[in-house]
């Protein structure tokens, strides 16, 4: 099983998914991420899916689950770089990723997290 690396940049954790995710990797990623948020005290998580071309409903739900987990730990999750085909697939699957913030690219994702934190004080 391949593990997805989690990078730390300031108080933001960046997860860049470059592999084809199977269900095991997804579950491992959720656990690793929760551990990392607690251990590093991160305030934001960015999941970069620019390289992801295929999604199924399980992966679609993963985003919502991760967002819910990190929110419990007082960190905001932003999903960035979703391809049009992936977005259309998720809509057709009936997943609207409620509660997940999205941004067009990594740069805008970082800006969004800063903006959210600024607003929160």
């Amino acid at each position, binding site marked *: 099983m391949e593990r997805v690396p989690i990078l730390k940049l300031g108080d933001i954790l960046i997860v860049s998914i470059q592999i084809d995710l199977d269900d095991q990797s997804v579950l491992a990623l959720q656990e690793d991420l929760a551990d990392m948020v607690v251990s590093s005290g991160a305030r934001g998580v960015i999941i970069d899916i620019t390289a992801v071309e295929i999604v199924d409903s399980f992966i679609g739900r993963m985003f919502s689950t991760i967002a819910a987990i990190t929110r419990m730990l007082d960190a905001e999750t932003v999903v960035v770089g979703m391809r049009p085909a992936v977005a*259309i697939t998720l809509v057709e699957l009936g997943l609207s990723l409620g509660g997940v*913030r999205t941004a*067009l*690219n990594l740069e*805008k994702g970082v800006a969004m997290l800063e903006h959210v934190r600024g607003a929160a004080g």
Partner: protein
Amino acid sequence: MTVPAEAARRRIVDLFLSSEERLLQRWTQVSGASPDELRDLYQALRTALGSEDGDFADVRGLLAELSRARARQGHTPSDTARLVFSLKEALYEVAEADGGPEALRGFVWFSRLVDDLGLFTFETYSAAREKIILDQTEQLLELSTPVVKLWEGIVAVPLVGTLDSARTQVVMEKLLQTLVDTGSEHAVIDITGVPAVDTQVAQHLLKTVVAARLMGAECVISGIRPQIAHTIVTLGIEFGDIVTKASLADALSYALRRSGVEIAGAAKTRIAVRAERA
């Protein structure tokens, strides 16, 4: 009394080949077409009937050409088919004059052949029509989906014409791709040119908005005419938290405000200054 099919066929072909002038004259009279057109057709038929293997490719080629030419001149496809069918009438007179049972039996065979050829002109006509319709559909798809940039970070799709699934798919993909390419965070879908909105169209619009939102962009739907607003409410379509505006101008100013551009005042002052100078 039975007549062998082969003998009947031979007899009618002989009659057909031997009475060229009479046939052509009568055919021209009955169909009202120009003798030249018919002469070419007759020659091709003659070659086809005379050949061993009965190859009608040339005849069909001629008929296809004739069908197209007459369609351009404004003849209906029935006219063209009737022109071919009228050969039967001309040949029947020849067969009747001959009077033999072979000739009459052969005439039945020949008339079936002519029927096939007549129907072939009709097929050619509808195939040509079909092709035009397909081409136009394709052109319409290409034409009807421009994504325009209104401002840095704001793009718009002016939709014109009826929205069906295929078109919405094209629009959706093009819009989303443009969002990625230009890094725009705001999109305006303008439906001023959409004549009617039903539940299906609304569903398509909602899907597009949700897909854009998934990618991290906000969509505004603008250009909703009063009747359409009425229809949407009557149908009970829920737009939820999707922003809708009456005009493209409203949508643009909303998107500008959302992206942090100040527009208030500046334009008015400039106009005032110019007025003073004049």
